[in-house]
C-alpha cells in the first residue's frame, strides 16, 4: 500500500478495533443524541404542523452534541493510556495521525447519525430517505469531524477538558450548523432542493478549507 495511506489505515483500524471491543463511544453518543430529541420534544412541543420548521434544528443540535461527546471520548482515550505519546513516537507524519483520527471520528459520527435518523424520522414524522438530506449529513459531518478532531486534541490537554471542546468548537462550526439546518429543512420540506443550491457549496467550501488548515496546525498542537 501507499506509504502515506498505510499509516492512516492502521490508525483508523486501531480505533475501530478498540471501539468493537469497548463499544463505549458509539453507544453512549447515540443514547445521548436520542435523549436530546426526547428533551426537545417536551421543551418545544413539536406538533405535526411545526415539524418541518423544528425538525432540522432538533436534528442538528442532537448530532452536534452527540458528535462533541464522541470526539471528546476519542482523545480522552488516547490521553488516559498515554496512547498519543505512543503514536507520536512512531515514524509517522503528523498529517497521517490527524487524518486517521479525523476519519475515525467521521465514521463514528456517521454511524451514530445513521442510527438516529430513522428514529427521529419516525418520532417527528418526516421522511428520512432523501438523497439531498443524506448528502447534507455526509458533508456537514466531514466538517464536524475535521474541526472537531483538531479541537479535541487541544481540549484534552487542558484543565476542564469537557467544557473546552464545545467552547472552541461551536463558534467555529457555526456556518456548517446554519448550512446543514437550512439544507435539511429544504430536503425535509420537500420543495425539491430548490433552495439547497447555495448551502451545500457553503459546507463544501468550509470542509475543503479546514481539511487544508487543520492538518497543518495539528502538527503544532501535538508537538512537545
Amino acid at each position: 500500500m501507499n506509504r502515506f495511506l498505510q499509516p492512516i489505515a492502521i490508525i483508523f483500524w486501531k480505533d475501530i478495533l478498540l471501539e468493537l471491543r469497548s463499544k463505549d463511544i458509539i453507544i453512549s453518543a447515540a443514547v445521548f443524541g436520542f435523549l436530546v430529541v426526547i428533551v426537545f420534544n417536551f421543551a418545544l412541543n413539536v406538533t405535526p404542523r411545526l415539524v418541518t420548521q423544528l425538525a432540522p434544528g432538533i436534528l442538528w443540535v442532537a448530532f452536534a452534541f452527540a458528535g462533541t461527546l464522541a470526539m471528546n471520548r476519542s482523545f480522552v482515550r488516547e490521553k488516559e493510556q498515554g496512547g498519543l505519546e505512543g503514536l507520536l513516537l512512531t515514524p509517522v507524519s503528523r498529517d497521517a495521525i490527524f487524518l486517521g483520527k479525523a476519519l475515525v471520528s467521521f465514521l463514528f459520527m456517521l454511524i451514530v447519525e445513521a442510527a438516529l435518523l430513522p428514529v427521529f424520522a419516525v418520532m417527528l414524522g418526516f421522511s428520512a430517505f432523501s438523497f439531498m438530506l443524506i448528502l447534507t449529513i455526509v458533508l456537514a459531518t466531514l466538517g464536524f469531524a475535521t474541526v472537531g478532531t483538531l479541537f479535541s486534541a487541544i481540549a484534552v490537554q487542558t484543565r476542564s477538558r469537557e467544557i473546552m471542546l464545545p467552547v472552541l468548537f461551536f463558534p467555529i462550526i457555526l456556518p456548517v450548523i446554519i448550512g446543514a439546518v437550512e439544507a435539511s429543512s429544504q430536503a425535509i420540506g420537500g420543495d425539491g432542493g430548490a433552495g439547497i443550491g447555495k448551502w451545500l457549496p457553503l459546507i463544501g467550501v468550509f470542509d475543503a478549507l479546514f481539511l487544508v488548515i487543520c492538518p497543518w496546525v495539528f502538527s503544532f498542537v501535538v508537538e512537545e
Partner: protein
Amino acid sequence: MATVDRVKQPLLSFSNALVVLGAALMLVDVYLIFMVAPTDAVLGNIQRVFYFHVPMAIMSFLAFFVVFIASILYLIKRDQKWDRLAHAAAEVGVVFVTLALITGIIWARPVWGVWWTWEPRLTTTLILWLIYVAYLMIRAYAPNRTQGALYAAVVGIVGFVDVPIVYYSVQWWRSIHPSAVVGPLAESGALEPVMQGILLFSFLAFLVLFLYLVVERMALRGLEDQVRLLKFSLHRTGR
C-alpha cells in the same frame, strides 16, 4: 545567579509618548463629539454613540488581524515576541469588541426598537467575541505557557479564517428569514462632512489608544515572563 535587567523607565519612552498623545486626542475627540458634532435630525443625540461604536468595532477587527498574523509568525519563527504581540492584541481586541457590542445595544434600543437583532454584522461580531473569548480561555487553561501559546496561535489562525464564512452564512440565513426589524443603518447613509471629519478624528484617537494598550500589555507580559523566570531560578537554587 540569574541577573535580570532593571526596568528602565525613561521619561521619553514610546509608551509615554503614546499616553500623552492618546489623552490629548481623546479629550479633543470627546469635545468634538459632544460640542461640535451636529445633532442628527432623525436619530437625535443617541447618534453620537456612533463616534465611539464604529472606531471600537474597527479597532477590534484590526486587533484580530494582528492576532492572526502574529500567530502565524509565532508558529513559524517561535520567537516569544510574536506570542506576546498576539496575546496583547487579543486581550485588547476582546475589550474593544465587548465595548462595541455594548454601545451597539445602547444604540439599537431607541433606533431599532429592540436591544438585539440577528442581523449579519451583529451576529458575526458576537461570534467573533465568542471565538476570542475561547482564545483567552485556552491560554488560561493550558497546562503550561508554551503549550498555551501554541494552542492559542492555532485558535487565532483557525478563528480568523472562519470569520468570512460565518459572515456569508449568516447573511444568507438572514435573507431566508426576513425579520420585522428594519432599521436605518446610520453608517450606510451619506454622512455630513462635519460628521465624517469627526468620525475620522475619532478613528485616529482610538488607533492611538489601541496602540498604547497593546504596547503596555506587551511590556507587562514581558515583566510577567521575567518574574516567572526569576521564580524558577529561585526554585532551582533551593531557596
